[in-house]
């Protein structure tokens, strides 16, 4: 594990047992999240983004999930733990305290029967040893911090009395209540409308900077990545195909899949033109995949691509898993 990393995922495999067979949802993911960075995880639906993120908290149903690989987490006190080997009893000491997560649909992620103040206080009671008035004061602070005002009054309301954006603010307040080192935002803004989305992103970035925590931002929206991430990884069919700083990812994407994704972002001022799509569909993860998973959809694929799985190569923080790294660059630059 690097010195400045908080979480290091090494060769993570997540296999889900289903009635149709074993789904290899995550196939050898390596991911380093550095202290204080916002790391984006991009890819289309079903490519294993959420699976990877949930593994960091071990949220999967363990009776139906097989993990292999390693997830190392540096705790606040400096010690290192291997999340996948932790006894179940110790999981609550990580969840919420070291790593917190917010989900896609904030309206149903809150218990409908408790007031939001109660829910935040409950979190504080579980993880801290503060006294009752201290907990209450902290809860109001948190609500103020995420812009729920007047905090006192609104803390006595129930989840259904809030809009989606407000509910997501509450989720954020809850997630941040125990000062986690890493916040995982799983499509946290996808269910919100564009203006609210911008506000929430702004809020998350602002809080991240103030508290100095790291963030793993899962999204399928490149716009979000461009807006707030420092670094980003692109996933395809359970594997990370490219990792680099956001600047480089947009300026000089290496993997044909990344380029195709960036190409398919709708742009304004080109009315009348057809939207660019990537032909084909992602492969089924029920069968083993030989060679590069993207090869069947890749216009540059060669025999080598179909046979041999490309390793991650590259330097200077820009890595890519492609035999032809760099090929077809002109495509992107010409648009």
């Amino acid at each position, binding site marked *: 594990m690097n010195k400045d990393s908080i979480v290091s995922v090494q060769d993570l495999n997540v296999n889900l047992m289903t009635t149709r067979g074993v789904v290899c949802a995550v196939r050898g993911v390596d991911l380093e999240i550095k202290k204080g960075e916002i790391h984006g995880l991009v890819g289309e639906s079903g490519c294993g983004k959420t699976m990877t993120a949930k593994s960091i908290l071990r949220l999967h149903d363990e009776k139906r999930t097989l993990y292999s690989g390693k997830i190392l987490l540096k705790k606040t006190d400096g010690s290192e733990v291997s999340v996948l080997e932790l006894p179940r009893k110790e999981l609550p000491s990580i969840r919420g305290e070291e790593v917190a997560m917010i989900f896609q649909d904030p309206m149903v992620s809150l218990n*409908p*029967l408790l007031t939001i103040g109660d829910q935040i206080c409950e979190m504080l009671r579980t993880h801290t040893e503060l006294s009752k008035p201290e907990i209450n004061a902290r809860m109001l602070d948190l609500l103020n911090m995420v812009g729920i005002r007047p905090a006192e009054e609104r803390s006595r309301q129930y989840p259904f009395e809030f809009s989606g954006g407000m509910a997501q603010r509450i989720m954020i307040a809850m997630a941040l209540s125990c000062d986690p080192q890493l916040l995982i935002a799983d499509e946290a803004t996808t269910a919100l409308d564009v203006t609210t989305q911008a506000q929430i992103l702004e809020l998350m970035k602002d809080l991240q900077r103030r508290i100095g925590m790291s963030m793993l931002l899962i999204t399928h929206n490149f716009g979000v990545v461009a807006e707030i991430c420092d670094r980003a990884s692109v996933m395809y069919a359970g594997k990370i195909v490219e990792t680099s700083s956001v600047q480089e990812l947009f300026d000089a994407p290496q993997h044909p899949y990344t380029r195709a994704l960036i190409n398919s972002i709708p742009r304004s001022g080109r009315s009348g033109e057809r939207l660019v799509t990537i032909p084909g569909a992602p492969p089924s993860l029920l069968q083993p995949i030989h060679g590069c998973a993207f090869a069947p959809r890749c216009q540059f694929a060669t025999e080598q691509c179909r046979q041999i799985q490309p390793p991650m190569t590259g330097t200077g923080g820009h890595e890519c898993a492609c035999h032809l790294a760099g090929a077809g660059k002109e495509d992107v630059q010409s648009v």
Partner: protein
Amino acid sequence: MKQKNVGRFFTAPVIITLALLALVILASIFAPLVAPYNPEALDMAAKLQMPTAAHLLGTDNVGRDILSRLIFGSRITLLSALAVVVISVIIGIPLGLVSGYYGGRLDNLIMRVEDVVLAFPALLLAFLFVASFGKSITSAIIALGIVYVPMISRLTRSLTLMERGKPYVESARSIGFSDRRILFRHILPNCVSTITTQLTLDIGSAILDLAALSFLGMGVQPPTSDWGAMLEEGHAYIQSDPMLCIAPGCAIILTVVLFNLLSDNIQMYLDPFQRKLPPFKKLKKMAGGLVE
């Protein structure tokens, strides 16, 4: 300004329900004061009378006053039916929660044992129990309580399965709540409304099942009065003197409906979205100048 929680529990239907329920309960507590006759006094001269001014609900086949028997009978009936339900709740809900939440082998074990209990006719199992622990109302209550466990725990289990998959449970897990806390503070309250509805219905069946046991000589011993026992005794006269069945039957229905209404209203109050708001006029006043 301090905002109070504006939902209210005491709406008109709730007040009426509570009043009637209080009437039933007070009558059973103060039975000796309220009942016009001794419930066990025979009066063969006045047997099988239709309702008269002297006997408001008539008399039974040995001339006992039906109203007095109903009032005295409510004591044992209500207490034992409630006890049956309480026993089944105490055992059934935790079993259902655990087996629904953890699944796997534990779930299988619990469910198979309950299948065995369900496979026997409820009364047969109760006989078994009474036979081994002696003829008394207590063993009848415990037996029925156990027989009712599978129903409650299966219901709880299926509700738990439903709630377990909801995002709020996952988010509760992601912030490090213990399983016990998630089960009892997050999942259970979200199941409670459905469970209470089942419970109020169970009170009704408990009254009838206890009556069946009493009829077979294994529950309440005669001449003690009990609604279920009265119903059983009366059914021989249903064609000639229907009052013998109608009176205890109505008492059972009324009680069950009252409990049911109460639970519905509790359920509505517990769910913040369904909670009754104050009258519109008052809301308007609270909103100040905002509402025209």
